[in-house]
């Protein structure tokens, strides 16, 4: 009798302490890994750290009895630096989830380590569609965008409006190659043709010889398959060579609002590109930007920042539902089972291959006269519905889909 009583009370105590005790070491630890000092620092960097903290605050983690911490590090866009940090985070610092990670080569390395250590990887910054394709993992969710969605959105629109001959200027690394490959496929499928391509070193500064080749190709459209500072420099230099004035147009396959800000509307006007989020689309986004800007040197949030916010929110929901963060694959499974809902991306789902599905938008950069002030840069040209925005599940070659 006495033993039974003791067992019962012990069981009751365990049940009472449940919610917190099952978190590994009592804390959900989020590691934001991105570029803190280099060419992607503005579009990821501290802004992503702020967004992760904001998500925790808005989720009301403290009130729900969930202890959440944020750490961050700089991967300098080098896969070996990134993998070093992430190993140490998982093994020593007890980090449970890594977020953001721009630069595809670093993201692919983190993807693999996360799978090996059974943690969680929420991608917002990296673009390569391989993360939900041949490199897909049961521990990864790819949130904001990917090369397929960008290529599909922009190339479709441009070819449809008569831009049927292309020349690619591609950053010579995994991300650039993937973006070029996916865009080329769309251009060819729509009956367009690719007149040539040239690859520039990453990060590059002088694009003159590449731009001259592009100019000489007589292609109607010059597709820029690069990002960040590379895109800014190539658009600026294209302006100096009179490429747009000469009748060729530039399709920037990946452009962020911070890039447009750096370029200025005079140089950037008329560029067409695809994104998944813009701060001026609705009231909820505007409210987020209003809080974001003062904390981030006046910069407005990019879609990557919004993606970090939304991904962290959904992760916390899944962890709360499971009452545990210990098994990374189980948390991601829960994330896929729960429909997503947050104030920035609205309602959506996470697919079996780890792809988060939502609407994408085709934007055009405003003319200086149309802009009402700083950061008022985009005109919405079209909304690409979620069902068409991302690569069909069966085409990715992901082993989790059958």
């Amino acid at each position: 009798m006495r033993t039974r009583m003791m067992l019962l009370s012990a069981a009751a105590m365990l049940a009472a302490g449940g919610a917190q005790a099952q978190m590994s070491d009592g804390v959900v630890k989020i590691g934001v890994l991105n570029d803190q000092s280099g060419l992607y620092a503005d579009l990821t960097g501290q802004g992503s750290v702020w967004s992760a903290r904001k998500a925790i605050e808005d989720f009301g983690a403290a009130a729900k009895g969930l202890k959440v911490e944020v750490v961050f590090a700089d991967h300098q866009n080098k896969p070996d630096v990134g993998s070093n940090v992430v190993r140490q985070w998982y093994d020593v610092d007890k980090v449970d989830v890594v977020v953001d990670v721009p630069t595809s080569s670093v993201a692919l390395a983190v993807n693999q380590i996360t799978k090996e250590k059974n943690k969680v990887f929420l991608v917002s910054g990296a673009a390569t569609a391989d993360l939900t394709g041949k490199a897909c993992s049961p521990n990864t969710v790819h949130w904001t965008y990917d090369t397929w969605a960008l290529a599909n959105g922009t190339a479709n629109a441009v070819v449809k409006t008569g831009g049927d001959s292309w020349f690619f200027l591609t950053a010579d690394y995994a991300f650039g190659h993937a973006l070029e490959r996916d865009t080329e496929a769309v251009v060819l499928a729509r009956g367009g043709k690719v007149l040539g391509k040239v690859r520039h070193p990453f990060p590059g500064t002088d694009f003159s010889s590449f731009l001259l080749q592009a100019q000489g190709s007589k292609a109607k459209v010059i597709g820029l398959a690069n990002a960040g500072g590379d895109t800014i420099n190539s658009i600026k230099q294209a302006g100096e060579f009179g490429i747009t004035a000469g009748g060729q147009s530039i399709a920037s396959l990946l452009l962020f609002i911070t890039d447009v800000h750096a370029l200025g509307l005079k140089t950037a006007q008329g560029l067409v590109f695809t994104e998944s989020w813009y701060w001026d689309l609705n009231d909820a986004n505007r409210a987020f930007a209003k809080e974001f800007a003062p904390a981030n040197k006046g910069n407005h949030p990019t879609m990557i920042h919004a993606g970090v916010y939304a991904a962290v929110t959904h992760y916390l929901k899944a962890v709360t539902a499971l009452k545990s963060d210990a098994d990374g694959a189980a948390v991601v499974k829960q994330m896929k089972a729960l429909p997503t809902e947050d104030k920035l991306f609205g309602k959506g789902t996470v697919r079996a291959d780890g792809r988060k599905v939502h609407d994408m938008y085709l934007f055009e950069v405003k003319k200086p006269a149309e802009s009402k002030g700083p950061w008022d840069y985009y005109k919405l040209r079209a909304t690409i519905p979620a069902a068409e925005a991302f690569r069909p599940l069966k085409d990715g070659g992901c082993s989790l889909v059958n």
Partner: protein
Amino acid sequence: MTWNRDMLAFLAFLALAIAAPAAVYPVFLMKVLCFALFACAFNLLVGYVGLLSFGHAMFFGGAAYISGHVVKVWGWPTELGILAGTACAALLGLVTGAIAIRRQGIYFAMVTLALAQMVFFFCLQANFTGGEDGIQAIPRRPLLGLLDIKNDLTFYYVVLAVFCAGFLVIYRTIHSPFGQVLKAIRENEPRAVSLGYRVDQYKLLAFVLSAALAGTAGATKAIVFQLASLTDVQWQMSGEVVLMTLVGGMGTVFGPIVGAGVIITMQNYLAGFGEWVLVIQGLIFVVVVLAFRRGVVGELMAWWRRRAGG
């Protein structure tokens, strides 16, 4: 007498290295050991033959790619992968050395740098290296079919053994008659020639030895991080190994180990400062060159000698 003192120092280092994983993260220690071996190999050339190579990254990074490729794609066992990397680095060293040792001083450095840049561009463009992605997810297969090196601690002791083997090879080389000739060449090459030594052959052999050991270090690092990337073949890596050797003490047996430890620790724990790490490294370099030119270990030994003498 020297033998005994070095022996004691080595045993002290070994004891420290064996106990270290209790306090420090093993993957970090493995990284330090790989770079220490790389710096020791470099020091063999610059400290004992007086040849400043500015292209050692090609042996380090080249071997990393080779071992990564043979282990991942061809499915070779780990130990053969490391040996393959070493062998390829030695071969590359033979070719590079044969070209470079015909020149001296700055010209030697420039020839090695030029060849290293060629290797870099090859690695950037070749298919098997994966460009900017590098070779990722290199498997850690059981060593000799027995030791499970997926466990970081087990692998740490394997890396320690590899390091010690490399270190002892270098130590033996320096203290052999062959090493005496190398030092003679460093001090006065024309005189060594006049004594009838075929200087070029000695230099070439030292170059190949140094390249091979740098390759061992690079191949091991690739297995440790399961990654071979462009960072390893970039010219900055050649610069880093010069820095490590200078900070630790050029031409001292233990200097490169200390130098590698200092630089890697800095890179690891100051990573939060981002690009500023390079500025801090530059400052340290300037301080070392201006204030204690013999490096940490070199100054310590000089101080010891002064005390013993006085």
